């Protein structure tokens, strides 16, 4: 038996991910849809290699409007899945069925899965499944994905109906039906040649979809004919065809609901949601509550839970490094190899992997916010503020994650619907001071401003936000002209996040991060190690002050003179900071040959003045993000050129701001 492709499709917030996880278990893999950076999750149903389930993005209709929809429709038309599992939120069935009606135009067998049936039962609503099946002539399966009820029936039904020829019921009526028939007869031949679904193509003709017109090679005279037919219809019903056909679908849905659904009262979830919303999106308290939630999350992530775990991880990796070092020594491995393994590879891995606990904890909280439905509320209350800088409310989430780590933040821009918003958000994310920069601030503050730690810290964070706003305004006026995409956002019912979904989400993110740590970051730390340990004669150096890196550092030093620091050690630290920001601290420690904190502080005082140390801080805050963030950006943009341009732009902004800070400072002091 050959492999069957089964597409899982449904609206946003209808429990699609939960069903996907329930059907495939843990055997899923994540890739991208060809050519775009929209995540594609695949897995085998019940470990059966014959049934491959593909998770399509959550969409509301098949009109190619957002990237998600373009990808979905392309997949359905070109990859031709053998079956569609259409998951529908039974508590919002009116809107969900719209997509179902569009899917029925595609000539692919459909299983209609009604999710959230537990809530329906609770609210004493009755859905007549049999009648619904008869009306739509589709198999309808009531389930509750979160309670894992009814999942087996889906698998059984797949076995039954896969490979059977389909002819979906034509629900069109009246003059619209006649219009569809007339246009179908014009294009039928061409559609059949290309093995495309006739009804879908007809609807494309009516909607004047240019891509489809070209793909089918519709001649001018045929186009004229089609226009004539739609014009006549528009005249008769006195409305335009967009309204006519959408209204037709909705009135079919109303008809279905009238016959099959008997509502008694609103569901408990909706009732609770209303109550919670009067709190979370309150006129005055909404925004303060949001800020409090974020503060609590950050407090837990970066101090209460994150810090000790991060320290433990670091300790563990250091012990590992030491032991491997001893082991290698005992076998008398040559010195350079030992250095490569311990100082290059393992040191690089330590600096990156010690961030794993923080990333895991941060994503734990974020997936709680996402799965519970609170994120949509955040987008709603913050939209006005972000629109001023040319973004939409949805961008707030990736930007906030940016305070934790730029890498997951850049990954999170996938949720934004327009490429324009994504790019702009990606440029701004590194300005949100990430947690890896904290050690640098800690180092400078304890050496220069021990009494004013909090003030300096807050100033740094504010400078980051301020620069982000300023650059957004500037970019909005120059590169990213025009408004952000229309903002039409559903506020889903609040739901209890399921442990399984949260766990799988964290697992995915952690895997992606570790994968990156073992590839590009490993490579770059080996390169830095090489530069740090060898001189031009390719001999190993005893002191890093004679290394290639030190040479490059001193070569670049004059560039930073206007910013107030012209010590080659500072420049070198900035270069190693590109691999990972914390490296700035370790490099400075190594280069100053400090043995303890006091000698390090004294060495730092030799390198910087208080003012130049501050401009150094500002520069590290804003300049090029670390290699990990850079490669993520490249991956998300799918273009080296764009990623490099963004990074150069950020470094330029960093230089200018640090210069201004230093000049203003010298005037004041």
């Amino acid at each position, binding site marked *: 038996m050959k492999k069957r492709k089964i597409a899982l499709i449904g609206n946003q917030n209808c429990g699609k991910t939960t069903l996907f996880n329930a059907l495939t278990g843990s055997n899923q893999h994540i890739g991208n849809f060809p050519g775009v950076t929209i995540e594609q999750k695949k897995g085998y149903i019940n470990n059966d290699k014959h049934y491959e389930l593909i998770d399509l993005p959550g969409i509301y209709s098949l009109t190619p*409007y957002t990237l998600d929809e373009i990808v979905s429709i392309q997949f359905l038309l070109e990859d031709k899945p053998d079956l569609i599992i259409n998951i529908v939120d039974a508590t*919002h069935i009116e*809107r969900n069925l719209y997509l179902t009606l569009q899917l029925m135009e595609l000539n692919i067998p459909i299983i209609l899965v009604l999710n959230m049936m537990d809530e329906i039962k609770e609210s004493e609503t009755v859905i007549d499944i049999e009648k619904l099946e008869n009306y739509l002539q589709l198999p309808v399966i009531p389930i509750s994905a979160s309670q894992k009820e009814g999942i087996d029936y889906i698998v059984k039904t797949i076995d039954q109906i896969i490979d059977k020829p389909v002819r979906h019921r034509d629900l069109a009526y009246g003059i619209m039906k006649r219009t569809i028939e007339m246009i179908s007869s014009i294009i039928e031949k061409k559609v059949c040649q290309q093995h495309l679904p006739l009804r879908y193509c007809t609807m494309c003709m009516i909607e004047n979809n240019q891509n489809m017109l070209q793909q089918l090679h519709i001649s001018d005279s045929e186009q004229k004919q089609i226009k004539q037919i739609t014009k006549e219809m528009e005249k008769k019903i006195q409305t335009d065809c967009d*309204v006519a056909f959408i209204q037709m679908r*909705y009135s079919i849905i*109303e008809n279905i609901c009238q016959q099959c659904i008997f509502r008694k009262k609103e569901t408990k979830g909706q009732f609770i949601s209303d109550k919670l919303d009067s709190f979370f999106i309150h006129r005055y308290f909404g925004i303060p509550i949001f800020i409090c939630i974020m503060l609590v999350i950050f407090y837990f992530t970066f101090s209460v839970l994150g810090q000790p775990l991060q320290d433990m991880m670091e300790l563990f990796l250091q012990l590992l490094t030491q032991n491997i070092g001893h082991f290698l020594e005992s076998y008398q491995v040559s010195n350079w190899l030992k250095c490569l393994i311990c100082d290059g590879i393992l040191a690089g891995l330590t600096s990156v992997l010690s961030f794993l606990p923080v990333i895991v904890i941060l994503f734990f909280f974020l997936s709680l916010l996402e799965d519970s439905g609170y994120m949509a509320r955040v987008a*709603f209350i913050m939209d006005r503020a972000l629109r001023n800088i040319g973004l939409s409310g949805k961008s707030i989430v990736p930007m906030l994650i940016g305070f934790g780590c730029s890498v997951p933040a850049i990954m999170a821009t996938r949720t934004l619907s327009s490429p324009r918003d994504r790019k702009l958000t990606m440029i701004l994310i590194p300005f949100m001071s990430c947690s890896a920069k904290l050690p640098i601030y800690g180092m400078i503050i304890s050496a220069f401003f021990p009494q004013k730690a909090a003030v300096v810290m807050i100033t740094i964070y504010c400078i980051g936000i301020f620069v982000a706003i300023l650059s957004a305004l500037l970019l909005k006026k120059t590169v990213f002209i025009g408004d952000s995409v229309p903002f*039409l956002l559903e506020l889903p019912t609040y739901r209890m996040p399921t442990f399984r979904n949260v766990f799988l989400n964290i697992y995915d993110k952690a895997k992606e991060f570790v994968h990156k740590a073992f590839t590009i970051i490993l490579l770059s730390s080996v390169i830095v190690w090489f530069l740090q340990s060898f001189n031009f004669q390719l001999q190993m150096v005893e002191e890093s002050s004679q290394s290639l890196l030190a040479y490059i550092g001193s070569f670049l030093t004059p560039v930073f003179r206007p910013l107030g620091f012209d010590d080659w050690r500072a420049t070198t630290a900035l270069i190693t900071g590109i691999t990972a920001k914390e490296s700035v601290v370790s490099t400075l420690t190594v280069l100053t040959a400090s043995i303890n904190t006091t000698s390090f502080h004294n060495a730092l005082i030799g390198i910087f003045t208080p003012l130049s140390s501050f401009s150094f801080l500002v520069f590290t805050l804003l300049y090029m993000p670390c290699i990990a963030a850079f490669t993520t950006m490249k991956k998300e943009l799918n273009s080296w050129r764009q990623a490099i341009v963004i990074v150069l732009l950020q470094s330029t902004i960093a230089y200018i701001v640090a210069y201004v800070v230093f000049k203003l400072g010298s005037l004041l002091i």
Partner: protein
Amino acid sequence: MTLDHVKPNTVVEIIQVNGTGLLRRRLLEMGLIPYTQVKVRKVAPLGDPIEIFLHHYVLTLRKQDAAKIEVRERTVYEKKEDSFNWKSKLWENNFI
């Protein structure tokens, strides 16, 4: 009257959706079609997006987009059975 001028906790009925192209299609596809009853529920803390209730779900949209939707006032959110009288009219017109 357009939807952006409707006060919170008011029920209105959509008459017409203006605008062009994909945005208009999207508004229609989300269920903002003529004869639909919409309840405006809340305004965001900063004064823009508004929150509306229609087809048993909650949607938010910006005022600039809501301005494209013409509505007329309704005194109460009518029961479903009554609100679909318009449909019979539609069917009459189309089934000739």
